[in-house]
């Protein structure tokens, strides 16, 4: 088990020229970046101190580039001959699900609008619509009062 080193520390060591060698090593589930220091090897860590696992060499390369490291070795021994694994992307899964739900919602609106366009009944003017809805509201309001009174009197 290799000791770990956090990104901020690695940055300082890189700036000081203390990183002698950098290796991107394939492991089950991803790639690990290891730095060879003067006396030991250290794996790049996450913020909580566990070994950071990159999804691919490109992802590791992006972080290494931030440290000014553009030359490194890639050790793919562990996955030699294996089928490339398909890494799941939960964020993309969520985005696709959202997109699907958006499409379904839009389709329901489209159908509702098509139904309205096919309706041959004449529309009501703003004023007539207001009167129509006002009458409905008044009737429902009266019915609600009656229903609530009946309910309270039966208690």
């Amino acid at each position: 088990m290799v000791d770990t080193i956090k990104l901020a520390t690695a940055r300082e060591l890189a700036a000081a020229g203390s990183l002698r060698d950098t290796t991107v090593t394939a492991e089950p589930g991803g790639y690990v970046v290891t730095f060879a220091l003067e006396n030991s090897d250290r794996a790049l860590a996450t913020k909580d101190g566990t070994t950071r696992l990159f999804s691919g060499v490109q992802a590791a390369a992006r972080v290494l580039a931030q440290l000014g490291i553009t030359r490194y070795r890639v050790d793919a021994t562990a996955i030699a001959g294996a089928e490339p694994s398909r890494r799941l992307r939960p964020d993309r899964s969520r985005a696709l699900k959202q997109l699907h739900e958006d499409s379904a919602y839009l389709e329901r609106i489209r159908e509702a609008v098509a139904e309205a366009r096919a309706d041959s009944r004449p529309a009501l003017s703003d004023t007539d619509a207001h009167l129509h809805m006002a009458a409905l509201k008044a009737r429902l309001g009266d019915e609600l009062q009656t229903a609530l009174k009946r309910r309270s009197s039966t208690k």
Partner: protein
Amino acid sequence: MTVAWGRLALEDRTQQLVAAFERAVALPDPYLFAAALARDDAIESEGGALDGAAVYRIDAIRGTFLYATRDGRYLIAYQRTGNDVHIDRVLPTRRGSDGV
């Protein structure tokens, strides 16, 4: 500059009021119906102002303008010819409901 309400748009509004009425009777809680009345008044008011600035989603539904009410609960689908507005539907937004 006119605004006309299609019959299905009025039925959509009616359906929302009736649903609130039924909930108000069942609980019972008259506030539920009062809140629905206030929402419908807002829909009517905002729908009546659609002959002003146009708000729409390009090509989302051909020929249809979509307006989300200020409370974010309803979507007003309408057609517009010049300043004449024909309101087709008043539908719950995705946030306002699981379905149309």
